């Protein structure tokens, strides 16, 4: 069925989300409709299974890591606020010019926050550094069975060598940022939301 979702979302909630994330009113109602259509259990929150039901996400090699990014530490359900907060990372950066009245502090879709999102995809145990092991695991997810352990190991070693500046054989967030300073993160990690 189409959704009666927009009538379940109150105006105050929409305003709060607008302030926090920078999405426009119509974008929020449409995303709520999408949230509602994914929520098969109709309990106002999404579980991991709800995400895995999306075929295009299920075939994405990093699908599980991306799904994980929506769920805060130790939780199994994400409500609409959490959903929007995560999606806000992918708002294009130019749009910030229009919404100067965002809450103080860095907007969720700043370059730094986009990089942090990507960093957390690598950082499996959430200890704020990417170890060789974690890098290997993520690489294995991306290539499947097509590359041997040794080759993958050498790729991981080379990557850490190039990035690691303080010699702890791990990549911290600042080292990560330094490695990617020439990459157009704003464009690569942005989704064009229609108004």
């Amino acid at each position, binding site marked *: 069925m189409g959704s009666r979702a927009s009538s379940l979302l109150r105006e105050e909630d929409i305003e709060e989300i607008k302030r926090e994330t920078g999405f426009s009113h119509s974008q929020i109602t449409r995303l709520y409709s999408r949230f509602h259509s994914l929520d098969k259990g109709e309990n106002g929150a999404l579980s991991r299974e709800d995400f895995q039901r999306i075929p295009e996400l299920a075939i994405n090699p990093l699908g599980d890591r991306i799904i994980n990014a929506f769920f805060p530490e130790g939780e199994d359900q994400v409500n609409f606020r959490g959903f929007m907060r995560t999606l806000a990372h992918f708002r294009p950066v130019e749009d910030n010019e229009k919404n100067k009245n965002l809450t103080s502090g860095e907007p969720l879709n700043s370059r730094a926050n986009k990089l942090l999102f990507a960093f957390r995809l690598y950082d499996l145990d959430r200890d704020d550094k990417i170890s060789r092991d974690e890098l290997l695991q993520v690489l294995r997810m991306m290539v499947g069975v*097509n590359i041997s352990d040794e080759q993958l190991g050498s790729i991981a070693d080379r990557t850490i060598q190039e990035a690691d500046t303080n010699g702890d054989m791990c990549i911290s967030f600042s080292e990560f940022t330094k490695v990617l300073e020439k990459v157009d993160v704003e464009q690569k990690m942005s989704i064009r939301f229609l108004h």
Partner: protein
Amino acid sequence: MESYLFPFDSLICMLLGISFTVWFTLLLVFIIVPAIFGVSFGIRRLYMKSLIKLFEWATLRMERGAKEKNQHLYRPYSNGIIAKEPVSLEQEIQEMRRGGAEPEFDMSDIFYFCRRGVESIVDDEVTKRFTAEELESWNLLTRSNYNFHHISTRLTALWGVGVLIRYGLLLPLRVTLAFTGVGLLVVLTSIVGLFPNGRMKNYLSDKVHLMCYRICVRALTAIITYHDSENKPKNGGICVANHTSPIDVIILASDECYAMVGQVHGGLMGVIQRAMVKACPHIWFERSEVKDRHLVAKRLSDHVADTSKLPILIFPEGTCINNTSVMMFKKGSFEISCTVYPVAIKYDPRFGDAFWNSSKFGMVNYLLHMMSSWAIVCSVWYLPPMSRMEGEDAVQFANRVKAAIARKGGLADLLWDGGLKRGKVKEVFKEEQQKLYSKVLVGSSEDRSRS
């Protein structure tokens, strides 16, 4: 005491008697007789035009109501929530490589997968095909309204009148017609079955089938426009169409006679199936036979080889899709060597949603919804016949036919399997993605070793 009631009693009886007679006469004259002869008074089209005007008025009222309260009207995402860029994995990674000194793997490679993943969470091609399509304007049915708080009193009154008309007048009328149609089908086909095989029997069977389906069409107030009738399927061929609901069968069969294919059911369906097969050969499979693909293929081939038998009607998607797209065609029907007659069916969602969401509604519930909608309006396009070309295998042929149907009906052409409605996607697709990425990685290392 009792003497007071007698005059009223007979008056009531008389009134009831008269109204029933009038009712049935009208039914007979305006609906059943035209159905028998295949003519139309044009009442339904007039009805459809007035409904369109009504819906547009209703939407304007809601917009005005919303503006007065200074609120936003919910707009369905008919244009999509996001604009996706069709960049492939290889293209994206090459672009990112150009900046540096060609490392084998870059930590930024993750951006592609990440973005694609989140894009599919926001808007994917598959899951939205299994729920009803959202409408731009409101059609006075509660089931498709998303702006409850914008309805003024006038609009509510109109909606109330609509409910009365639909449930009080249209629904009983339609149910009566449906019973008449089905009843006649069972009785008449059994009678025709008593005739000896031959031209007379085929002629009668055609006429009987067409007549009963036409009554059923009127039972749904279906307003169908057939295009390109010169391409109608002929004997010895297979007709394939996109599938939205069980009503598709009635819509196609009221214009042309087909041999149906399906599983043997019990209950009422079983009775209908057994009666139909007496008049002309349909193909009904037992549950156990359905699994045996060779048996299925053989029976279908035998049927098409006999040119005295009617064309077979098949829905290759295998499940109901919500009429915004055409999903993967199962190759079974395309392996048989014969002419394929593609047909595209497109419903107009403004008058009633024909899509059967079988995970949400059962058959009876669905039929009730159908019969209490305003009308079912659809267009049927008969496409020119197609045959398998040299060097084309069944899958390629199926995709070619699917693309033609999608193009004609204005539907999206998807490669995804309709089976994803219920099942999980196969692991092999993920492995393909992984293989693709590995090729990019390993490929660049080969270049390095060469230089």
